[in-house]
C-alpha cells in the first residue's frame, strides 16, 4: 500500500459523528454533533495543475437536524447526526439520508448556476407594474449566475422509533431503505413518510428480560431482500425479507464460540459489535468489536474467516477502560473498493489498515503535527512492554480522548477520510 500523500482538513465547531463518500467518490459528506452536514466535492483534475489532482473542497453546508424536546418523556432529543447514507445519483441532483436518534431526513442537494431574467411584470424595484402598461409578452431568459448549491429537505421520516437510531441503509432497489434502533428495524419507502414496515422487533414482552440490543444493520449490496444486523452479544443475523414479514427468525446466525481462556467480566462488553459492513462483492461481512475486526464468509456461520487485532494491548487494561467508559466506544470499519484492505480507528488518533491478501497491517496517525500537505504518513507503533524504541509510544501514554470512530474509503480509489474528533483528514495515495 502506498503511503498517503496529500491531506486537507477542515475545522469543525463540533465533533464529527459520521463520514461517508457517495457512490462515485466525487462527494464526501460529514455530519456533526451540532446537527450540521458538510459536503465536500472533489476538484476536477486540470491539465495545468496535475499535482493538485482531486482536492476536496467544501461544496455545501446545511443544518440537517435541530435539537428537539420530547414533551411526553421530558427528554431532549439530540441533533447529532448519527449516520449519513447517499442514494445513487439518478439525475443532476444529489440525494442523501441523514438521521439523528429519532428522525430520518431525505435531503436534495442541487446546483443552480443560471437564473431567469427579463421579466417585464415588475419594475426595477420589484413592484408589480400596472397590467395596463404591459404591452408586450417577454419570455424570461436564463442567464448565468454564480454557482449556488442548495440543500432542501424532501422527506422527513419521523415518529417511527422509540429507541435511538443507530443505522440506516439504502436498499439496492433504490426504492426502500431501512432504519434500525436498539430494538427494532423499520423498512421505509422513500415516497411514503407516514408509515413504515417493522421488519425486526427484538423487544421482549417484559423489558426486565432485555439482555441484548441491535447495534448495527445493513442491506446486502445486491440482493434487495437480504440484510444483516448485529447485536451487543457479538452475533450477526442475516435475514431474508421474502420469508415471513417479521424477520425475527433469521435465515443465518453468525457467532464465534467463546474462547474460555479469555473469559472475564468484560467478555460480553468487548464482544459487542459496533459496526457491520458488507463487502462490495456481497460475499463477506466485516464486524468490529472492541478489540478486533472480523471478516465472515456468508456461507460459514460458526466462525469468522479472518480476525484482525486492532489494539490487543488494551486487553490488560479493560478494567480501567470500563471505568472511564472507553470500553463502550463504538468504532466503525470500512472496506476499500476492491475488498482487499480494511480500515478501522483506534485511540491516540491512530487508525489501522489490514491488507487481507498480504496479511500486513499498518498503524497511522491523523494529527496536524504529523501531517503537512503532501507529507508522507509515517507508520506508528505502540510499545507493549519492555524497552520502548525511539519512535514508539507506550500504552500508558495513549490519549484516550483522541479516538477515531469514523472513517470512510473512496469507492474506487485509494482516498480515505478520517474523522478525528472535530477535524477531518483526507489522505490520498502517493502519485507515482
Amino acid at each position, binding site marked *: 500500500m502506498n503511503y498517503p500523500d496529500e491531506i486537507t482538513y477542515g475545522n469543525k465547531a463540533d465533533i464529527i459523528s459520521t463520514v461517508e463518500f457517495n457512490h462515485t467518490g466525487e462527494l464526501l459528506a460529514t455530519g456533526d454533533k451540532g446537527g450540521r452536514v458538510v459536503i465536500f466535492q472533489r476538484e476536477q483534475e486540470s491539465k495545468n495543475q496535475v499535482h493538485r489532482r482531486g482536492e476536496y473542497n467544501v461544496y455545501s453546508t446545511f443544518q440537517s437536524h435541530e435539537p428537539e424536546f420530547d414533551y411526553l418523556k421530558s427528554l431532549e432529543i439530540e441533533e447529532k447526526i448519527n449516520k449519513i447514507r447517499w442514494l445513487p445519483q439518478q439525475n443532476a441532483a444529489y440525494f442523501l439520508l441523514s438521521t439523528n436518534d429519532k428522525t430520518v431526513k431525505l435531503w436534495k442537494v442541487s446546483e443552480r448556476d443560471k437564473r431567469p431574467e427579463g421579466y417585464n411584470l415588475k419594475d426595477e424595484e420589484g413592484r408589480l407594474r400596472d397590467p395596463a402598461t404591459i404591452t408586450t409578452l417577454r419570455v424570461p431568459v436564463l442567464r448565468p449566475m454564480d454557482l449556488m448549491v442548495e440543500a432542501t429537505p424532501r422527506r422527513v421520516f419521523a415518529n417511527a422509533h422509540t429507541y435511538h437510531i443507530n443505522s440506516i441503509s439504502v436498499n439496492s432497489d433504490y426504492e426502500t431503505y431501512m432504519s434500525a434502533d436498539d430494538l427494532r428495524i423499520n423498512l421505509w419507502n422513500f415516497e411514503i413518510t407516514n408509515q413504515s414496515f417493522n421488519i425486526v422487533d427484538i423487544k421482549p414482552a417484559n423489558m426486565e428480560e432485555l439482555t441484548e*440490543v441491535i447495534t448495527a444493520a445493513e442491506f446486502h449490496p445486491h440482493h434487495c431482500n437480504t440484510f444483516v444486523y448485529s447485536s451487543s452479544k457479538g452475533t450477526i443475523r442475516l435475514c431474508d425479507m421474502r420469508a415471513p414479514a417479521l424477520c425475527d427468525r433469521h435465515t443465518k446466525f453468525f457467532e464465534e464460540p467463546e474462547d474460555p481462556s479469555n473469559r472475564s*467480566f468484560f467478555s460480553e462488553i468487548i464482544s459487542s459489535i459496533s459496526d457491520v459492513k458488507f463487502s462490495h462483492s456481497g460475499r463477506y461481512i466485516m464486524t468490529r468489536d472492541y478489540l478486533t475486526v472480523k471478516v465472515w464468509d456468508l456461507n460459514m456461520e460458526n466462525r469468522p474467516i479472518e480476525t484482525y487485532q486492532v489494539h490487543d494491548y488494551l*486487553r490488560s487494561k479493560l*478494567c480501567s477502560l*470500563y471505568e472511564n467508559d472507553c470500553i*463502550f466506544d463504538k468504532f466503525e470499519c470500512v472496506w476499500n473498493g476492491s475488498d482487499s484492505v480494511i480500515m478501522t480507528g483506534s485511540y491516540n488518533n491512530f487508525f489501522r489498515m489490514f491488507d487481507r491478501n498480504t496479511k500486513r497491517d499498518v498503524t497511522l496517525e491523523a494529527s496536524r503535527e504529523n501531517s503537512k500537505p503532501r507529507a508522507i504518513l509515517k507508520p506508528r507503533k505502540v510499545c507493549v512492554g519492555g524497552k520502548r524504541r525511539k519512535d514508539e509510544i507506550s500504552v500508558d501514554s495513549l490519549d*484516550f480522548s483522541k479516538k477515531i470512530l469514523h472513517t470512510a474509503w473512496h469507492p474506487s480509489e485509494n482516498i480515505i477520510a478520517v474523522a478525528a474528533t472535530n477535524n477531518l483528514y483526507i489522505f490520498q495515495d502517493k502519485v507515482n
Partner: protein
Amino acid sequence: MFARGLKRKCSEEEAPADPLQRQSLLDMSLVKLQLCHMLAEPNLCRSVLIANTVRQIQEEMTQDGSWCLPGPQTAGRLPRDRLVSTEILCRSARAGPPQAPDPADLASALQAVPAIQVPGAVPAGPWGRAGPGESRGGFPRSLDQVFETLESHSPGAVEELFSDVDGPYYDLDAVLTGMVGGAKSGPEGLETFASAAARPPGTGCKADLGELDHVVEILVET
C-alpha cells in the same frame, strides 16, 4: 474525564479475579447504571451491557458463596449492612498491602446481604418494575433508604467509597445529598439499586414518589 493514560484503580489484570476487586467492579457498575438514568436519555446498549455485567458478577458471587440469601430477620438491616460490607472491603483494600480483613468481621458483614435472584430466575434488571405482588412504590423507598444510610455514614466513609473514581461520579454525591430517608426496606436487594432512577441534583430534598414512578415508566417504556 478522559485523561491521558489510564487510571490504575483496577489492577493490570484483565479481570478482577479476587473478591475485593470484584466487589469494586460491582459497585462501579451500579454507579454507572445510576448515572445512566440521570442523562438526557439513557444509552440503552450501554445500560444493557452494564446490567449484564452486574448480573454476571452477582451470579459468580452466589456460586462463590460470598453472596447469600438473607433470612427474614435480617430484612430490616439489609442495605446498611451491605454498604458496611462494601466500605470494609474498600477500606481494607486501601489500608495497604492486602492484609486480609478479620475473617470473622468480613464473614458477618458479608452474611447479612440483601437477596439476589437465584440463578435461573428471571432477573429484574435495571428496567424491572417491582416484581409481581410488590407495589411500584416499593423500590423507590428502598433506594431512599439505601441513599440515606450512605449519607448517614461519616463523610469519610462516603468519600472513601467514591474517592478514586472519576469526575462524573462526584455528581452522584450531589444526588445523594438531595435524597431523604424513606421507610423500611423491602427484600428486593440489588436490583432496586439498579432499577430506580436517580434524580437530577438540586431538585429538592424529598424524593417524590410520583416523579420517580414517572422516570421509571420512561425507562421501562410500556
